């Protein structure tokens, strides 16, 4: 019955004729095969796979708006290959299996040329088999734990070497930090990042005793004990810093507790990898003055491109206070790269676009030009920003040039010999030691 | 306690020195009572006298703080749970008629039948001629043959009371505890119920709790009056109702 809703009344008569035999099944088939829009010829469809409801809506809604904004801007310029871009928005509702279902729907039913989407690693992992099976393109805009290079995915967020390691370097050099607290939410990104950092710190001569690792559940709200522990750990006579991979929601109570227990950035600085302008919008940042974040983009960076982007974004959203953040810039870069690749091969055929993408360059918003690498990651500058009283960041340090994203961490035993190379080797996990594709080998 | 070695008493049901309190309130206070095999006993008493609590104790729903509760002179009921006590042969009809409303009258009786009550037994139950004959017989006794396929929930109040008595019959226990069987019944129904109970009494021991004095009188059996959790008076209905303290309790002091 409900299938009728999905397709036009036009199909009704045909369906009714066949309903006598195996109506339900065939009806289902008819409904689905006729549903794809006939408009497919004069527009290019772009899938947007970001949660609009549920727990992840807090972060992902903005990214949906970003892509809509970018498509709008592109269409003003005449679209791509002379066709308008048509966004297809779905809501995977922060539900991981639903991500896979929606991805399948976007590719099979809506026949999109490319998908921009996902935030959490698990959502990306969930849709990965779908993109591989149906051979389509996913642009993933969020910093993540690395250890992945897939033919169908382009990672425009930071790999650990584009965020975590430069941040630690900064603290070591500029703040002379000798003792480290690695605090994170208990899931894959913090676990992996902390593993990488631990190995990196040890390689720099930091003793095991000088590293404290702590994990908390998602949405942890009672930070009293942990903040007290950090305070205690920090009073051992050596300069101490906290490297925080605490996930979005838990940050506000964490920072509130830090502020209230009187831990100032001058005593124990906290450098966070998941706290950006959007997250700070929910906190009174005065007590957090001087705590740090490492990103590849800050709204406060003054370049003409960034100022133009912010102005147009705020005009598009009709909200003069709307902030911008790093994953938005990642989508900005990714979207422009895709457009360039499509224009280069004059086709939206995923195979052609995938092959064309490595090597494509697109300006980022911080004054540089990012390039898509053969491992499907991009080059990005790394900035360290200090939290200011107005919820923005003040860039205190940046890498001299752009840093190339490593798909595989050099610090981890399992992946140090691996590289991703979809141009020469056509392989995401090429082992440079055995010269073979397929991981460590046995 | 010399409970287990010999039959301590010839009584079918034997309560001695039972105490129960709920949060400091003494619901049952040094209650002693004996019910001989084959006897029918009426229990009366004002609200809160502990009648229902006493039944709860006998059927294992409430555990007494102290005291002896023996069944058939040997079995210590305070150590058993409701299911075990029911299996021993003590059936109970509740104050508020409690039948399985969403099932048919016939199924209600079927469930009450004293046959294999294990999970396996019921899963592979196939029914037998003997069983359906017994159900037919009980239906006849409680005058619900015509209503056998009706849902129990659709019965009238009186019919539900009877159905519950019928379930007791199907259960075929040694002792029947009947809590206010005629509450809400018409005079005719009350009379019929009294007849029914007397008939059942021919081969079952019965304890009836009732407020309705006409009904108790009609039963014509030994009466025990409870008050504040202990026995106030015992004897024939005339003896009890002429007892000064009973009058005092019922009419207020």
């Amino acid at each position, binding site marked *: 019955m409900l299938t009728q809703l999905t397709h036009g009344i036009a199909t009704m008569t045909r369906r009714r004729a066949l309903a006598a035999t195996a109506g339900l099944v065939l009806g289902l088939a008819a409904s689905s095969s006729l549903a794809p829009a006939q408009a497919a010829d004069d527009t290019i469809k772009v899938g947007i796979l970001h949660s609009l409801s549920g727990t992840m809506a807090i972060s992902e809604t903005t990214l949906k708006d970003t892509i809509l904004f970018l498509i709008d801007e592109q269409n003003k310029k005449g679209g791509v290959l002379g066709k308008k871009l048509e966004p297809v928005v779905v809501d995977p509702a922060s539900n*991981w299996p639903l991500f896979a279902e929606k991805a399948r729907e976007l590719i099979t039913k809506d026949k999109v040329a490319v998908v921009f989407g996902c935030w959490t690693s698990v959502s990306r992992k*969930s849709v990965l088999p779908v993109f591989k099976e149906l051979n389509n393109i996913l642009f993933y805009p969020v910093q993540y734990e690395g250890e992945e290079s897939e033919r169908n995915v382009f990672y425009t967020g930071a790999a650990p070497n584009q965020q975590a390691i430069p941040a630690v370097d900064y603290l070591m050099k500029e703040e002379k930090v000798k003792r480290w607290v690695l605090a994170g939410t208990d899931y894959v990104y913090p676990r992996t990042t902390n593993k990488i950092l631990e190995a990196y710190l040890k390689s720099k001569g930091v003793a095991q005793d000088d590293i404290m690792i702590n994990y908390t559940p998602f949405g942890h709200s009672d930070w009293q004990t942990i903040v007290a522990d950090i305070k205690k750990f920090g009073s051992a006579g050596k300069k101490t810093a906290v490297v925080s991979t605490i996930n979005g929601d838990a940050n506000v109570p964490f920072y509130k507790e830090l502020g209230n227990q009187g831990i100032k950035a001058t005593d124990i600085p906290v450098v966070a990898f998941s706290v950006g302008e959007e997250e700070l919008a929910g906190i009174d940042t005065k007590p957090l003055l001087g705590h740090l974040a490492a990103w590849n983009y800050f709204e406060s960076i003054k370049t003409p491109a960034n100022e133009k982007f912010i102005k147009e974004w705020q005009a598009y959203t009709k909200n003069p206070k709307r902030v911008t953040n790093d994953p938005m810039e990642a989508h900005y870069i990714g979207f422009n790269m895709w457009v360039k690749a499509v224009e280069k091969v004059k086709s939206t055929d995923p195979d052609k676009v995938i092959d064309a993408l490595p090597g494509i360059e697109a300006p980022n918003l911080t004054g540089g030009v990012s390039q898509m690498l053969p491992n499907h990651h991009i080059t990005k500058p790394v900035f360290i920003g200090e939290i200011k009283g107005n919820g923005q960041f003040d860039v205190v340090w940046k890498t001299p040039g752009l840093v190339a994203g490593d798909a595989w961490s050099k610090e981890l035993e399992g992946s140090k010999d691996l590289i991703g190379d979809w141009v020469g080797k056509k392989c995401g*996990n090429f082992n440079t030691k055995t010269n073979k594709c397929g991981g460590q080998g046995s | 306690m010399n409970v287990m070695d010999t039959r301590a008493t010839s009584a079918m049901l034997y309560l001695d020195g039972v105490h129960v309190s709920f949060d400091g309130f003494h619901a049952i206070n040094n209650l002693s009572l004996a019910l001989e095999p084959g006897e029918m006993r009426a229990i009366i008493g004002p609200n809160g006298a502990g009648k229902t609590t006493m039944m709860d104790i006998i059927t294992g729903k409430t555990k007494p703080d102290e005291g002896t509760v023996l069944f058939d002179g040997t079995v210590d009921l305070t150590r058993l749970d409701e299911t075990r006590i029911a299996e021993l042969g003590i059936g109970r009809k509740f104050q508020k008629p409690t039948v399985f409303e969403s099932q048919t009258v*016939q*199924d209600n009786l079927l469930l009450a039948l004293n046959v294999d009550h294990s999970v396996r037994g019921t899963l592979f139950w196939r029914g037998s001629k003997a069983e359906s004959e017994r159900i037919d017989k009980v239906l006849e006794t409680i005058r619900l043959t015509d209503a056998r396929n009706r849902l129990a929930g659709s019965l009238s109040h009186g019919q539900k009371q009877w159905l519950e008595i019928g379930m007791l019959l199907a259960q075929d226990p040694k002792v029947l505890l009947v809590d206010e069987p005629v509450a809400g019944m018409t005079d005719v129904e009350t009379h019929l119920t009294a007849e029914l109970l007397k008939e059942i009494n021919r081969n079952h021991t019965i304890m009836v709790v009732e407020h309705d004095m006409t009904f108790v009188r009609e039963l014509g059996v030994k009466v025990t009056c409870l008050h504040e959790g202990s026995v106030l008076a015992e004897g024939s209905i005339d003896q009890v109702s002429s007892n000064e303290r009973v009058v005092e309790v019922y009419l207020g002091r």
Partner: protein
Amino acid sequence: MTPHILTRSLDRAATAFVLIVAAIGVLIPLSNLLLPQGSMFQVPTYLVALWGKYVCYAILALSIDLIWGYCGILSLGHGAFFALGGYAMGMYLMRQIGSRGVYGNPILPDFMVFLNWSKLPWYWYGFDKFWFAALMVLLVPGLLAFCFGWLAFRSRVTGVYLSIITQAMTYALLLAFFRNDFGFGGNNGLTDFKDILGFNVQAEGTRAALFLLSCLALIIAFLISRAIVASKLGKVLIAVRDAESRTRFLGYRVESYKLFVFTLSACMAGVAGALYVPQVGIINPSEFAPANSIEAVIWVAVGGRGTLVGAALGAVVVNYAKTFFTSGPLAPYWLFMLGALFILVTLLLPKGIVGTFNSWWEKARHSSPDADSAAREDGIGAPNAAE
């Protein structure tokens, strides 16, 4: 005389249901495989996977209905059994990847390699064999349900209290499976499956077969449930649901009945989870989220509590609505609809779709008070087919 347990359970409506599910189970895969792509009547693969998912949900709904609809046990943690079954299957699929993982480690799954685990934890042993995994699919949820139920039913935790501790159970499992130390892949769970019994999980043929299997499992689960509710055991369960202590005073060991049906239901949920995982391609801790379990209860409520067909139907209808409303312009309002559905169904349609239909049907043919047994389908007062 009462007929055999199996024949007794197949009244007209039940037979119709079984036939429809069987037809769907055969025709959808056939249409998908045999008809040419793009043909009007070809069911695309993505719909096969989607409907496969619905069918798994239908089994889960059935298992919830068996305990809630018939025995009055409202479990708000049934998703836990579903997820455990899924994890057991996921572990098998993980082991089947072998050296095709991104790190190429022949034994360790990828997530263990990148967290520097040196060897396989003991509880992963045996999962490389399908029979073992299949056994675990039944055993793990069954055992958990048995232990949990044994404790809870014996101490007579009932009603709301039981619902809340089942919720605590699934919440505790959610937190535990989130932990990477636990060895089940943490938040990401298990994914990137390649083969099942030597067949590529993404191949159309495998999908079709999995769909057929799911339908088969639904039929079997339905028949088992039917057999139970149509037996005297079913009457006892309803008795427990309606008047638990009365049942006890009749000499039934209520806790055994509850334990039996709860454990069975958990096993069914486990099977549903196991079939779900290869079709969806991922299993992760979010399946343990209390919200998921509550949602599954709603499927049953929508379809009709205490009617097996209703439970299955409810699962399909609600999930279809979810698929439909989470795309397109209505996407941001999906939660409004789901929420409103909960409220409206409980207020206006307390018997659910099938239950309401049944009573309407009963009323329509009220002229004969001794209603035909088939008309009542597998409704609450499942009548004796002997009449």
